[in-house]
């Protein structure tokens, strides 16, 4: 559907984003023959014309049966999508430049086995099979180029089942925002140590005394899982350490003179990552906003990156 076709399909439903869940009703599903379907259609027409002309009844019956099966496959292709629901989408934010792994949760109440559902968004493709009355997660890897809110276009869900003669498709257009973090500098200076308290040396988090265990939450780093405890309890447990008494760092926008704002954002993003990895408490100061921190941990990390991602573009 590229090129001039795009303009026509801009009129197709849905024409603007909608809240999730979105259910495909039959008026939102489009069906057109594939290139191969057109070829078969030509062959069938030739057969029908020849059989009618020669009054060759077995040939006519066979051609008609094939044509009717093709019609049935068209209806079946439409039904492969009808009633399909996009329950939710989610994605772990990634730095710009890395593909955003968009997870789409599809479900249906029908008794229909739906194999070979294809998902497309611009140049990214994915496919999945939805079992009867079931739910399934499909993944799309969306390329990201710039930080901030991702401009999510319509996601096309399509199928050529059952015979590959026609393609049925429909669009989902979720209005759910997806965030892309700024791309951290690949190489840059070390964390600014000035203005920080040099009293304590940086402790190694792995060697720290265990404070408590808590259940695993999605996004917890793998190295913090307490495997031995988990094996004993039969559920994943994560170590929570006492706040590491690291050296606090101040990451301040204003201290980065001589850089344009994108470069500043990149550097700050790298520093935020670095400080988090080193287990240090850090404060992020951005213009026109209250300072974030000092704090440490996943939540703080995401908060800082989010603030950086949403800095106004030039």
């Amino acid at each position, binding site marked *: 559907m590229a090129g001039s076709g795009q303009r026509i399909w801009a009129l197709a439903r849905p024409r603007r984003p909608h809240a999730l869940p979105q259910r495909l009703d039959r008026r939102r599903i489009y069906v057109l023959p594939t290139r191969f379907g057109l070829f078969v259609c030509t062959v069938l027409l030739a057969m029908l014309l020849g059989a009618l002309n020669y009054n060759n*009844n*077995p040939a006519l*019956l066979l*051609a008609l049966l094939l*044509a*009717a*099966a093709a019609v049935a496959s068209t209806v*079946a292709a439409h039904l492969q999508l009808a009633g399909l629901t996009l329950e939710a989408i989610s994605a772990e934010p990634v730095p710009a430049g890395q593909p955003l792994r968009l997870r789409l949760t599809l479900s249906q109440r029908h008794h229909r086995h739906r194999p070979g559902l294809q998902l497309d968004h611009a140049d990214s493709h994915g496919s999945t099979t939805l079992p009867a009355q079931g739910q399934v997660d499909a993944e799309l890897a969306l390329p990201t180029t710039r930080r901030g809110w991702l401009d999510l276009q319509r996601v096309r869900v399509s199928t050529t089942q*059952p015979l590959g003669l026609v393609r049925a498709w429909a669009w989902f257009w979720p209005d759910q925002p997806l965030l892309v973090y700024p791309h951290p500098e690949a190489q840059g200076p070390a964390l600014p140590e000035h203005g920080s308290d040099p009293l304590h040396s940086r402790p190694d988090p792995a060697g720290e005394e265990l404070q408590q265990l808590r259940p695993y939450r999605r996004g917890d780093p793998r190295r913090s899982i307490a495997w031995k405890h988990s094996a004993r309890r039969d559920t994943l447990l994560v170590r929570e350490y006492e706040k590491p008494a690291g050296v606090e760092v101040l990451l301040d926008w204003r201290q980065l003179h001589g850089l344009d704002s994108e470069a500043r954002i990149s550097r700050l993003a790298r520093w935020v990552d670095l400080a988090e990895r080193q287990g240090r408490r850090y404060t992020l100061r951005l213009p026109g906003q209250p300072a974030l921190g000092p704090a440490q941990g996943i939540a703080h990390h995401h908060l800082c990156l989010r603030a950086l991602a949403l800095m106004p573009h030039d």
Partner: protein
Amino acid sequence: MTEPPLLLDRHARHWTLASAALALLPLLLQLPAALSATIAAVALGTAVLAWRGRLPVLVRVLLVVAMLALIIVLMGTRPGRDTGCALLAAMLAIKSSELHSVRDARSLLGFALFAPFAAFLLDQGPVTTVLAVLATLCALLALQRLAQQEGQATPQPLPAQLRGVLRLVLLGLPLALATFWLFPRLAEPLWGLPERALARPGLSDSMEPGAWLDMMADDSPAFRVQFQGPVPEAAQRYWRGPVLTRFDGRRWERSPFEDTRTPVDVQPGAQRWQYVMDVEPTERRELVALDLPTAAPDGTRLANDYTLRSDRPLAALSRWTLQSAPPRVFASTLSPWQRRQALDLPEGSNPRTVALGRQWRRDAGGDDAALVQRSLDWVRAEFAYTLDTPLAGRHPVDEFLFEQKAGFCEHFSSAFVVLMRSAGVPARVVTGYAGGIRNPLGDYWVVRQMDAHAWAEVWLAGRGWVRVDPTAAVAPERIYDTLEDRLGAGAGANLLDWRQAGLTLDFVRRGWNALVLSFDAKRQRELLRPLGVGELGAGQLVAAFVALAGLALGAMVWLLARGERERDPLLRAWHRLGRRYRRLGLAREPSEPALQWAQRVHARRPDPALLALSERFVLARYAGTRTHLASLLGDLRRHRPPSGASS
């Protein structure tokens, strides 16, 4: 397309190759054996070679050229239906060498879908039909597999695949049938059917020693007859075909002048036979009729010698309604031209027969009938019937009469006519069929290709042309007896069983012929005659077609949309019960347990019956106590939400 081609997986490849092979099979059965064997070998070879890797372009081009050359050598350059089919078969065979991407597989399958159609142009028999249906189903399975590969779905097991395809075909069946019966047919074809380049064995305008052996071994039906009224007895069941008068010493030919002259005078006897013939396609114009047809039906012509010829080649099954009467006098006078032709013998051929004929004429004086009787007596006394004859030499009649003294109808009729002509009695060879088998199912007669027969006619003053069958003098059982008579002496019940099965099959085949094969524009117009409606006009047909096709389409959509039915009757009944409550806004949540739902409903509007039912359902479904399943099913189906005041 800039996307890289999607490569075939092993599964899809197998299916595609299998469908190409199956599609090839009905075509190969209709082509000359040598060509079929070569095409099959090439198909196998390329499939095996291409398995290893892509064949070089040069090899493929060479293959194409070699196949073209072979087809031209074996079938000639005259374009015909069979030449086209041979080309298609060769292309299918070579095309299987380039089978790498999904796209390749699909183009091969497109041709594989076309192949059964081509096979039907050559033959519409049961074998072709069965093979064509199998090939089509296999191609659909392959298409389904390809679509699954395209959607990156995991391959399903074979029964599930088969179910998917059969479901589509069965759902399409009503629509296909409605279109088949009601879509307006062409009364006259827009363009003619190309003829075959190679003829099949059958009755023709000529007869040569040994040329009939193929036909005598062919037990496929030539035509089927249903008599209305009296049935001729065995000695009268001579189906008259082409009459051959010209003889060159070896080969008998029909005189082309016979067609241009009007039929001779005939005084029919008192007997009349009314019958309907269903003639299998022959690609020729020759028709047969019981000796002698009283009139030519529409679309045929009777020649001077009472040979029946169709105006068009019989490319499809055709039905003829005829009346015949045995002649009392068949051509009371012979014109000088006719007499000369019926006495003509080539100079110098078969000298001993000619000498014998002259000798007998001197002995008999003017009595032609005595001459005929004398030669029949001789044949009866000294000759034998056999299909195992040596190749004919320079004087085939001499060799047969004086050396071999054994042969079949071809030899007997030919020798007899030569002998009669030598003795000065006008005589000619008549070809056609003799006998036939009665099928008690449906009460009709089948005449097979192997019933082909040749006999003689001599012209006697006062009686005209009289049928003389020298073969019947030697081996009457070959002509008059049916197989039952020969088996009657207790040849074994086994053989009779086989025969019964054959007759049943033929009955089914006749039904298929009547119902499907011979359906045409005329029968379509008379479709509603059994209901007392006259001929349908084009407008009525279109209206009926649109109405019925719409209904069939609606049924298809409804059946498809209903989705896969729940297989468990208990769950089905339970879901139906749930739907009745959903209408009242009391739908069960997807994750809500049955008992909890029932209690919730009961709290909203008292419904103790539902509580009891849901308990029984839970027991039957999860505890496996299915002893009272039938009564539970009945109760579930009968239960309705109480119509009390809702809260």
